[in-house]
């Protein structure tokens, strides 16, 4: 699939938007989406990773291991960030959505 033809789902777009300017790990991504949408959208931890893996496999995001904490019983955190391809795909997806929104605006007060 060509990265020039973005077909991001809403959830994928949300995920990528959250990590656009920050490196976050899974739980932070889930929490950020919940906070940003004031609880209207939640991505449970159980559903999050398969989506992240798919995005990573498509080259839209990248990840690296971080630190471990006591609460995690020694397991390390894995931090995600956007790749260059991911950034342009996200921009293109937004542009398409904006274009469709602008096109479907009511004309002449009908």
């Amino acid at each position, binding site marked *: 699939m060509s990265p020039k033809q973005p077909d991001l789902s809403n959830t994928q777009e949300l995920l990528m938007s959250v990590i656009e300017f920050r490196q976050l*790990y*899974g*739980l932070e991504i889930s929490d950020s989406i919940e906070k940003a949408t004031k609880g209207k959208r939640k991505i*449970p*931890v*159980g*559903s999050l*990773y*398969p*989506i992240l893996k*798919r995005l990573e496999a498509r080259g839209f995001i990248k990840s690296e291991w971080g630190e*471990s*904490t006591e*609460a*995690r*019983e020694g*397991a*390390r*955190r*894995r931090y995600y960030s956007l790749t260059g391809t991911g950034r342009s795909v996200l921009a293109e997806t937004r542009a398409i959505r904006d274009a469709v929104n602008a096109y479907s605006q009511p004309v002449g007060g009908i």
Partner: protein
Amino acid sequence: MATVVLLALSVIIVSVTTLALYRNHQTEERRKILQHLLRYNNLVIKDGEYQLSKLTRVQIEENIKQILYIKIENGEKSKVTRTGLKALTSFLKVRMLRLRNIFLSPDEREEWLGDLKEVQYRLRYIEKRSKWVIWLYTIDQHARFGWSKLDILVSNLVSKIIGG
């Protein structure tokens, strides 16, 4: 002749390396399972060997007897004791851990379970939620993760079939 010998040597080296890597991976898996079992007192170290603790063994046997009894004597009052139930839970937990480890790569396990533990920690110590809530949350997350994995597996299979 030299080519054949070289080829044979390469095959042997690759096989030995693969076997060594596999064994190393298995040792790591074993170490993690042992850590878990020790933490929940399902194992004891006796004469330098890991053994199922006597208490756990007795509890499991007792519990199985009681479950059988309940099955036979249908309609009788429940005879499952608290310890028996606890033993069965930890017994099933170990089986579930093994089952889960088949489906998860070590990286996935570290990342996903680490995050899950962090949430559990938050629920237990910061939000002071009940054990029941934490248990329900854990089951829910396992189900979601399992479902997502299954979904990926099926869509990969379908796309392979369609793609020929």
